[in-house]
């Protein structure tokens, strides 16, 4: 009976939002009693951390022991480069032998990560998007977490970006940034034909954007790349990816029979959905890389 009563009491407190302070007095008493117990005596964690020499010796000893154990495991691993290793099994044979028919991609790795394991890559893009959103949450400046000193520093930076000469950086940025971005686009568009793809090409485009931003300053960058375009590109690419893969999984699983034409392997317009998916991933990665740079330097995209 008592248990039931306390349950209702807790439920009522939870609905009212007072659950935390219900047993607060009891909790404080129990906490102050517990605090004085020191189980380790003179070998407690704080003593070890306080003693610099002992801590260093123990860290090195643990790491060396770890390396020793792992080396003994490596000693028992199958031989390096042997074709009959257990890692080289029928999954790899399937990917290599029927990969061209089923995905139409010359690059087997692109066919693997964007067709057979496309949901994995979708998760990766979401991880990148989540990471950049977390950085925005932590570092984007607004009225509450922005002191006058930082504002003065930012103003100074903008002033130097506009008025300082820096001829090598500015001319280099002007000449190199378009070439770097063009090369990144080439790597993305040839992702299914040659080494490369969305992730590497997107990183190259991001490097070009960062070079341009570091030469000409954030203000000039904001004429064509604001926070609004950033979110728009990222969300649109993620939704396109989701729609493409939902379509192919739905039709494939239900045997509807309408397939995307694979094209001739080797042409640039071939291999079904791999090219648009590569473009989506590349745009997300480029935006993310530039977003990290902008947020870490100025706290604003």
């Amino acid at each position: 009976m008592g248990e039931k009563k306390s349950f209702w009491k807790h439920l009522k407190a939870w609905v009212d939002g007072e659950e935390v302070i219900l047993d607060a007095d009891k909790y404080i008493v129990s906490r102050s009693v517990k605090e004085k117990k020191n189980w380790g005596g003179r070998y407690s964690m704080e003593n070890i951390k306080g003693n610099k020499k002992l801590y260093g010796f123990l860290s090195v000893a643990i790491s060396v022991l770890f390396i020793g154990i792992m080396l003994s495991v490596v000693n028992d691993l199958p031989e390096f480069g042997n074709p009959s290793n257990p890692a080289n099994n029928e999954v790899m044979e399937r990917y290599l032998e029927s990969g061209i028919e089923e995905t139409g991609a010359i690059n087997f790795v692109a066919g693997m990560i964007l067709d057979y394991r496309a949901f994995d890559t979708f998760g990766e893009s979401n991880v990148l998007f989540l990471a950049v959103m977390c950085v925005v949450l932590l570092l984007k400046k607004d009225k509450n977490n922005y002191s006058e000193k930082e504002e003065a520093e930012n103003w100074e930076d903008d002033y130097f970006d506009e008025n300082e000469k820096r001829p090598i950086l500015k001319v280099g940025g002007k000449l190199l940034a378009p070439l770097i971005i063009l090369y990144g686009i080439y790597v993305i568009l040839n992702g299914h034909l040659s080494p490369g793809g969305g992730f590497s090409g997107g990183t190259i485009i991001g490097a070009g954007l960062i070079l341009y931003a570091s030469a000409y300053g954030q203000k000039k960058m904001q004429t064509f790349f604001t926070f609004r375009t950033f979110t728009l590109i990222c969300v649109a690419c993620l939704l396109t990816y989701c729609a493409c893969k939902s379509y192919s999984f739905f039709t494939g699983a239900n045997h509807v029979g309408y397939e995307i034409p694979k094209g001739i392997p080797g042409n640039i317009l071939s291999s079904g959905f791999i090219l648009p998916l590569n473009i989506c991933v590349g745009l997300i990665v480029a935006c993310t890389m530039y977003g990290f740079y902008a947020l870490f330097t100025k706290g604003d995209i």
Partner: protein
Amino acid sequence: MNHLGTNFYEAVSVILFGIGFMNLLLQNNLIKKFIGLNIMDTAVYLFLAAKGYIWGRVAPILTDGIVDASYYVNPIPAGLVLTGIVVSVSVTAFSLALVQRLYMHYGTLNMDEIMKISREEEGE
């Protein structure tokens, strides 16, 4: 079973992992700690790439129209390494953002000093 002489890529990756771990334990500066974490990530990529290699075979990109599994190396570790790189970049960026906030609040990157100041602020 005695392959330590032939498995030196794996052995080097294990040693790198241990160096990164030691860095993580011994450094007091938070940014150096995350450099240690990145060394550990790199060791894992080296291990996976070494597991995928097969002697005398070429990269998994169709060459001369040969569709034969015994001509190419294993493509699966390449995909795994790609996943690992993306996750490591995300984790590094997130943790560095946290470090920047910590520096703004405490004015130091030293782990011990941050702990000391936070204890004083709590009033113990």
